[in-house]
């Protein structure tokens, strides 16, 4: 009955095991759900509630605070155009207008073929490389209308546009929902493990030993 695939269920359990309190896994698990489905569905929230010891409405309550979580389907490629001050100074408003007119949708909506969703977003920390946009959170720096058209053409042709626009990103462009393509893995023989705070009685070993030596 679960939402997560068996493989993702294991990932979810691993993520939850890293926190002293499992509710802390809420945002990582919402990301995992979005990675699997492209958006956060009702059944996903139900299972996340089970995994975090909360209710589905608490999951929605937390998740809806954060802009990256989508509670309705979005395009396979999320185009985020920054229009904050540094980008605006160098033409972000014109860039957004080009993005909207060339794709034929307003910011906040999705193209009819389900390929692109356009959003006008706040500063994404590429200010010296303005104006910039991201596609599925991969950066395109010093953007022009031509650069955007090339990126769109690449995506439509099935090519990776990564590397255009003097950005620092590399590799392929994943579909919406996938952020870092490599997960943290804590090997069992190296893992310290976590204890609920109420069960911790004193300082950690290295500090205790130092203090004992001091006294």
């Amino acid at each position, binding site marked *: 009955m679960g939402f997560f695939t068996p493989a993702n269920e294991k990932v979810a359990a691993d993520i939850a095991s890293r926190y002293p309190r499992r509710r802390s896994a809420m945002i990582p698990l919402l990301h995992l759900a979005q990675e699997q489905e492209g958006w956060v569905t009702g059944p996903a929230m139900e299972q996340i509630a089970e995994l975090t010891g909360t209710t589905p409405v608490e999951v929605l309550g937390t998740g809806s605070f954060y802009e990256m979580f989508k509670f309705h389907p979005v395009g396979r490629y999320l185009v985020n155009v920054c229009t904050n001050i*540094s980008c605006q100074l160098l033409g972000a408003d014109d860039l957004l207008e080009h993005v909207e007119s060339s794709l034929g949708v307003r910011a906040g909506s999705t193209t009819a073929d389900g390929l692109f969703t356009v959003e006008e977003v706040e500063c994404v920390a590429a200010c010296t490389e*303005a104006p910039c946009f991201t596609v599925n959170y991969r950066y395109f720096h010093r953007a022009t209308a031509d650069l955007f058209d090339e990126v769109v053409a690449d995506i439509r042709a099935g090519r990776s546009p990564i590397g255009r626009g003097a950005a620092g990103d590399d*590799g392929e462009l994943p579909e919406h929902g996938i952020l870092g393509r490599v997960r943290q893995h804590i090997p069992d023989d190296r893992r*310290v493990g976590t204890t609920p705070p109420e069960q*911790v009685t004193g300082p*950690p070993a290295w500090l205790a030993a130092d203090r004992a030596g001091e006294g």
Partner: protein
Amino acid sequence: MGSSYVTHAAGYVDYGGPKLVTSRFGFEDSHTLARSEATGGYVGLRAALDMRPPEVHGEVRDATLLGRGGAGFPAGVKWGFCPEGVWPRYLVVNGDESEPGTYKDRLLMERDPHQLIEGCLIACYALGLSQCFLYVRGEMALAQERIAIALNDAYAAGYVGRDILGTDFSVDIVLHWGAGAYIVGEETALIESLEGNRGMPRLKPPYFPAAIGLYGMPTIVNNVETLANLPWILEHGAAAYRRHGSESSPGTRMFAVSGHVNRPGVYEVEQGVTTFRDLFYGDDYCQGIREGHELKMFIPGGGSAPWFFQEHLDVALEATEISAAGSMLGSGAIIVMDDSTDAVKACHRLVRFFARESCGKCSPCREGTGWEEKILQRILDGHGRPSDIDLLLDVGDNISPGPYPVAAHDAEGLAAVPFPPQQTTICPLGPSSVAPIVSTIRRFRHEFEARITRGDGIPVAAAPANGGGAEA
């Protein structure tokens, strides 16, 4: 992975200055463990492990390492606020960089994740922090990926986890990322978010994280750049660190200069030595304002900072000097605007940002930032009313009462007030929205008035002479 990393640190400018935190940025593989180890990586950690934990803390305190997140509080002093006898203690790394104009933590995370990991380990060792949560901004996919790879490599190599480098020092570093909310960069909101809640700030006091933080336990929250300085300090010592920068602000800062300069970029600059004029016009740095234009104004420390003008160009890049001149160094984000910039429009854009990002917890901010945005929008649209300028100031006064910090140039003779100002809100987000309003109205009131009286939102004014019949 397997793909080759083909690009260098986008935006970073190596001008030949000191490199305390950017020393590996010139290497294409700066983010790998191999490059880190080949260039002094984890040497600072080894040095720390040869010292007693209180000695490591003492070294950081002696270095006067000022926090790089925005408030500029000395890290060594902040570390001393953990109450005795309360365990466990946690480290939360603030990598939620989203202040408008700020671009440095992303670079540090993407380009040198091992330096950051090493800094986290040094902090944990010094204070007995038993677990570290590395909170990266949600939108930074590449940073998340590279930190994940770096952590996996560091665990395998024995730098992180159980019995680090054969000692009894053991700590897990957990990579965690957010999901798009500026306010989560505020340290108590960051903790709320990490606990699985909406990222709304907590009231201080009593919720100073060092005393009552994550899960109610003592928690150190440090910015990425702050922690990235630790390996250098431990490797070379506090005395060497203090030889860089100025007396009150040792070391370097990463400054992101964006906007209308010829060579925007991220520069690692010694604090207190360089002035804004050097930075904007120097051949080593930004090489001047773009052709045919002059400087109109600049923001010295991110979207939250009061604005500076021509007469502030000789202020040194250092927290106390900038505060004395009426603004703040903040997160090292410098936004340069030339004479082509519409002050009202720039003001509106920043205010809109704060209105969108207000978490909604405190009424003056939740309602006030929205009002400010709407008033500015109608002025831009040509529907402004003559009373709107004072109304803007009045709404701002409800969020941040009293004289707002303005540049010392001010003809009214106001003494400079240190940032942050008085506030009716829990956190500084609401008051930050007042910074662009007060800055622009004080300096460019005539631009607001021109917008209001011109009424250029009425289309008949632009109709052809014989086609519109606009004459009434």
